[in-house]
């Protein structure tokens, strides 16, 4: 077993280095599940309330798209799995793929792996260590979730099944990330590849769940939901992710053994001997460094938009004359079911697009920790010019990403309804979120200027906005806290009327944060 020599040492090292990260992931996922059951019990105190909610949910395709198949909704357990299951699975998948990439390709990219390999560390030790860490985190989360739910007097078998379905998905995405980390030499591309698998998995199951459920069988998220926790409990669908996890692990091992350290499967090509004309300013450099990221995001958001847009089609074809539909439409204040759905879909895509904005600004910090700005800032390039270059890319890139998402969502809908007028309408509704996305860009910039070590806190704000947006009503989050979210303040077009005042306020706050960050950066040490 000399290939695995030192794995345990590495595991303990990762456990120590990433202890805060690990605890935060585990705590936030388990807490999210833990607060759901009490919330549902207080929201639907009687069986009659539960039954009524079940009927309403079964007819609400917008909710099904995000939450998953309708199964066992007349029970507290089934309602828990429906309300929080989808987001729990996505978080577990994200956690696994990010942790694995962080422990493998990101380390290798930084050159630290080389240092370790020169010791008596085995050839597969890093892969094994990343796998052990991801497995431990997933098992801990699954076990805690099951224990918490059992403690909350939910059925034993269903609680175990719910926990197990999360472990299976987490391990699957850990293995996918392990394999993708072998393919490309850039850690961002590696996690992007695994993230794309997650996006496809979500889309397939959304389309499957609003239809007859067959498409969901192609989705890893679908497999976890096919275990029907609290609604029949069947174990065998978990055999699929289990088998595929082993396949991806074998792939990672084989690819990893074949390639050189630091290399991917794609060899780098030589570049130009002279810089092109546009590479001669801080902005030119920032565009060059980030254009790949912006393009990837735009394409990914377009595809996501197409996915959501296709669902809108499906919904519009379902809208018949049924009484429950008419009731729901009436309750929504007259907006059509499709517009109500689009309102939620665009809101969700806006939140994802804001992640691009944060990531783009955080490039400033990653450049800084690598001491790369030293060389720029010792030419007659001002600090403001350097910060502004990346912030500009983040601001303009946000526009591109939102437009791509809007076009994606509009295209299938406009084609099927033969109504080209839908395109500007939906793209405009998407762009309504621009001030909110820019506010996040501003927040990340302010953190970079004031508390560079804490730039990651922007993600915490993002997570809070997301939770408030999706679980605000369910968890009875106080209104003042909900009002803190710029996404909540933005009118959810086309489901809600346009109001300009909140947009103006959000823009002002964003500008204030941006300015704060730029000024603060002027007054601090670099490095």
């Amino acid at each position, binding site marked *: 077993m000399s290939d695995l020599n030192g794995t345990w040492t590495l595991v303990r090292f990762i456990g120590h280095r990433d202890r805060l990260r690990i605890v935060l992931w585990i705590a936030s996922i388990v807490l999210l599940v833990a607060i759901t059951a009490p919330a549902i019990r207080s929201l639907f105190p009687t069986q009659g309330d539960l039954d009524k909610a079940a009927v309403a949910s079964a007819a609400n395709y917008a909710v099904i798209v995000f939450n998953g198949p309708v199964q066992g909704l007349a029970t507290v357990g089934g309602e828990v799995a429906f309300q929080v299951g989808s987001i729990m699975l996505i978080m577990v998948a994200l956690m696994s793929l990010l942790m694995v990439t962080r422990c493998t390709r990101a380390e290798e990219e930084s050159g630290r792996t080389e240092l370790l390999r020169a010791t008596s560390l085995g050839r597969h030790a890093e892969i094994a260590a990343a796998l052990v860490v991801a497995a431990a985190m997933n098992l801990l989360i699954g076990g805690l979730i099951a224990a918490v739910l059992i403690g909350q007097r939910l059925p034993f078998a269903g609680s175990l099944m719910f926990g197990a379905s999360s472990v299976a998905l987490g391990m699957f995405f850990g293995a996918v990330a392990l394999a993708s980390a072998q393919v490309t030499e850039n850690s961002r591309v590696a996690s992007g590849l695994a993230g794309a698998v997650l996006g496809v998995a979500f889309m397939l199951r959304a389309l499957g769940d609003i239809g007859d459920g067959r498409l969901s069988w192609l989705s890893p998220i679908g497999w976890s939901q096919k275990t029907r926790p609290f609604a029949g409990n069947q174990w065998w669908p978990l055999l699929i992710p289990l088998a595929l996890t082993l396949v991806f692990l074998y792939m990672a091992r084989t690819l990893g053994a074949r390639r050189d350290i630091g290399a991917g499967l794609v060899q780098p090509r030589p570049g*130009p001997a002279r810089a092109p004309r546009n590479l001669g*300013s801080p902005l030119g450099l920032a565009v060059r460094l980030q254009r790949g990221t912006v393009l990837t995001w735009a394409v990914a958001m377009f595809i996501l938009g197409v996915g959501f847009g296709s669902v809108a089609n499906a919904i519009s074809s379902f809208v018949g004359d049924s009484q429950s539909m008419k009731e729901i439409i009436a309750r929504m204040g007259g907006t059509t079911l499709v517009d109500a759905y689009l309102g939620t879909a665009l809101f969700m895509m806006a939140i994802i697009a804001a992640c691009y904005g944060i990531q783009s600004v955080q490039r400033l910090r990653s450049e800084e920790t690598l001491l790369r700005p030293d060389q720029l800032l010792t030419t007659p390039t001002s600090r403001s010019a350097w910060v502004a270059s990346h912030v500009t890319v983040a601001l303009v890139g946000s526009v591109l990403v939102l437009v791509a998402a809007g076009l994606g969502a509009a295209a299938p809908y406009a084609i099927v309804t033969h109504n080209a007028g839908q395109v500007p309408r939906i793209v405009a509704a998407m762009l309504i979120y621009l001030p909110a996305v820019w506010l996040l860009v501003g927040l990340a910039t302010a953190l970079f200027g004031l508390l560079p070590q804490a730039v990651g806190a922007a993600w915490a704000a993002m997570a809070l906005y997301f939770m408030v947006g999706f679980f605000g009503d369910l968890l009875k989050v106080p209104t003042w806290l909900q009002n803190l979210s710029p996404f909540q303040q933005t009118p959810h077009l086309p489901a809600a009327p346009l109001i300009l005042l909140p947009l103006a306020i959000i823009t002002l706050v964003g500008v204030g944060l941006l300015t704060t960050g730029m000024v603060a950066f002027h007054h601090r040490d670099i490095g």
Partner: protein
Amino acid sequence: MVDVISTRGLVKTFGRTRALDGLDLEVAVGDVHGLLGPNGAGKTTTIRVLLGLLHADDGDVVLFGGDPWQDALMLHRRLAYVPGEVNLWPKLSGGEVIDLLGRLRGDLDYRRRDELLERFELDPTKKARTYSKGNRQKVALVAALASTAELLILDEPTSGLDPLMESVFQDCIREVKQQGRTVLLSSHILAEVEQLCDRVSIIRSGRTVQTGTLTELRHLALTSISAVTIRPPTGLSNLPGVTDLKLEGQRVTFDVETDQIESAMRILMEHGLRDLTSAPPTIEALFLREYGDFMAREAARSAPDAAGNMPTGAQ
């Protein structure tokens, strides 16, 4: 003489670490000035304060008559910098990085750039990701040397270069000096400093411990003498400035201060000098002498926790 760089009592702390502890440094116009010191002595911190990347906690620092923190932009027009650890953008080719830095500085001379690429045998089409440490350093060196900046600030620029490239580098620095430009060269390679520098400042623990011309510093160092005499050279032990005196049969070895060499020679000749070797004072000897006691103290201090924490540098 006009000073390009002048610092007095410079203090910079990072948390509990005092990286600079009252550092004085003066670099005159047209000089190649060596900044010598062991790892963690504060060389890089000093340079980053001079570049306006760090803000000094206390003390005065003047660069070209201006304040590096306040007037960074204006001052950066007049200098070029090679960092100790050259981190390039992995996706850019070496040529692109050189052109980018040159254009930002605004004084890129393509002919000079191509000539330097040839002299340093650097392939500009390779992606920075694939360069070795030495080649990354060459990229930064070519970018700096291709500029017309009045002041070059070089932080251990040759630590990754092979001996051949080291000599190319030394030639380039001599040319820069002939053009009347100023160079601040931090290094711990003593031979390089001896080859290139007019003046040297030795720093340790964030403080300047010696500064002067090479001649002045050599003067402070000791010449090692080994001689064979017919009769035992009595009187040497009473001579001031003689240390480490050892007598083995007819051979006597000792170190002597420069201004006592003549007296020592006289004593040796009076006792029938048969054979003589003398090793000239080197910066190395001075370096070791300046650090000897310091290292011993450090070793004693860090010994108790040697099993646990690695002592960290000034960064």
